């Protein structure tokens, strides 16, 4: 058993496959040594709360990246769904309908992305870049360009409440990630999505409707962005129509850190979770150490590149 463990550690593929998890442990260890506040449950819990929205968005991004695509429209779909959610609730629709409206508006953007990519044969990058612009404008128009408050007890308890020591916020995010993992490993649908991303001709030869798979992943992606929008409104207390560019970039960075290939075919949902946690931990640790926030993007950038170098060791 020890021999097998030793062999695993000597295999460069192990380090490549688990780069994000190893990075998380190393960064966590460094911060624990540097500050006694890091490894306390209140701080870990705060860290998980601030990672939650990113976790949901990274899981959304994972679906498009698995098919060899990418979803740039997240940066606009997120504020768009947040604005629809806020307007629906403030307009008196009630919380359940507002939640449905938010998820449907996110899903709609995903569906349009999927149809443009699968039916009009537009490259994923270009299609979602176009939708990024379109939805940014639409969100600004329907909100009048202004952010506005959304006050609700439900949202407050969603953002602050907990079951015992577990906050609802990251409970939702973790459930989503676990479910995504199960979809890829334990369902025929997940296998067909992986096949579509890994070798589209082979998948088609075996009778898998690859166009429908492509549309389906963007629909799931969009629905998850709608859910993330609800979390965002709960956390910030309002709807803001402006672009969420940093959420977009960190969602892509999390997936890449996690070891999924941008060429598609490989889903590493647990790696993506670790990737999102690495990026959030960096920010958390820097804040505890009172490092200027100007250094944070530099550290994030270096970590992403280092992970890409590590992933070249992958089998």
């Amino acid at each position, binding site marked *: 058993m020890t021999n097998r463990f030793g062999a695993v550690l000597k295999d460069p593929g192990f380090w490549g496959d688990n780069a994000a998890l190893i990075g998380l442990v190393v960064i966590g260890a460094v911060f624990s040594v540097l500050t006694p506040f890091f490894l306390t449950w209140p701080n870990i819990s705060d860290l998980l709360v601030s990672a939650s929205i990113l976790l949901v968005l990274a899981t959304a991004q994972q679906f498009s990246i698995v098919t060899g695509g990418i979803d740039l429209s997240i940066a606009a779909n997120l504020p768009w769904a947040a604005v629809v959610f806020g307007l629906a609730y403030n307009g008196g629709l009630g919380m359940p309908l507002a939640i449905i409206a938010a998820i449907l508006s996110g899903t709609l953007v995903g569906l349009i992305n999927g149809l443009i990519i699968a039916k009009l044969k537009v490259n994923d990058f270009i299609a979602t870049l176009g939708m990024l612009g379109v939805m940014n404008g639409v969100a600004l128009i329907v909100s009048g360009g202004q952010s506005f408050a959304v006050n609700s007890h439900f949202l407050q308890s969603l953002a602050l409440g907990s079951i015992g020591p577990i906050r609802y916020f990251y409970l939702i995010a973790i459930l989503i990630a676990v479910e995504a993992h199960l979809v890829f490993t*334990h*369902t*025929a649908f997940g*296998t*067909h999505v*992986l*096949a579509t991303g*890994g*070798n589209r*001709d*082979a*998948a088609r*030869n*075996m*009778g*898998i409707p690859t166009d429908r798979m492509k549309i389906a992943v963007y629909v799931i992606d969009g629905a998850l962005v709608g859910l993330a929008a609800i979390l965002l409104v709960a956390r910030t207390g309002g709807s803001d129509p402006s672009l969420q560019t940093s959420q977009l970039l960190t969602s892509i960075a999390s997936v890449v850190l996690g070891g999924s*290939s941008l060429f598609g*075919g*490989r889903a590493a949902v647990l790696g993506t979770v670790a990737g999102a946690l690495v990026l959030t931990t960096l920010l958390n640790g820097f804040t505890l150490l009172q490092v200027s926030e100007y250094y944070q993007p530099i550290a994030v950038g270096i970590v992403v590149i280092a992970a890409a170098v590590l992933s070249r060791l992958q*089998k």
Partner: protein
Amino acid sequence: MTAILEIHDLRKSFGAVEALRGAELTCPAGEVTALVGDNGAGKSTLIRCITGVHPPDSGTIAFKAAPIHFTSPTEARAVGIETVYQDLALVEDLTVWQNMYLNRELKRGLGPFRWLDRRRMIEETQAKLSRLLVNMPPVRAKVRRLSGGQRQSISIGRAASWGSALVIMDEPTAALGLRERGAVETLIGNLRGEGIAQLVISHDLEQVMRISDSVWVMRAGRTIAHWRTQEVDRTRIVAAIAGGEV
């Protein structure tokens, strides 16, 4: 021997190009039928007509004595005609068992909670392939980690494992080394024992002599010669391909 596939006077044109001008072919059960001919002789078009990629202009294709008119490879597969493509149609990032059961997954549970029955698929992949393959790769390994010969064997093993009556192979060993070619030829021999009809396109006449029961030669869209393999020698096949006296 019962003929699984019988083709009579098949014709197919693409615009002004007559790709098939009256092709004949018979594939008996439990036999390896070799199809040889120069590039452009019409072998690939003939195969595509059988598998539903191109509908023929005229002539008949009978499968198990019933006429067929496929419009897609999926329809051909549904009745038991499998094709092993040159690009193998395997997904490298999936495991052997996932490829084996791709789009034929076994599930358990009810309604929306239908999960993959991974254990049964792994066990049955092991059982099906180990019966056929000489060099059995680990069924949980990703295809990316396998050699060309192992991949080709899995591709063929998969095609033969679904109650298929006819397996069509296009140059099954063209990209393989000597030892791997041997393993694939053994696999083809094992399939013959299963009663499956096999149609093999090959440029390698030594191989045709080794593995086939009968050989058909195509030239300029026609099947111009047909022998039992044991009643012919390589020189006569070469002469027929090149356009000499049959």
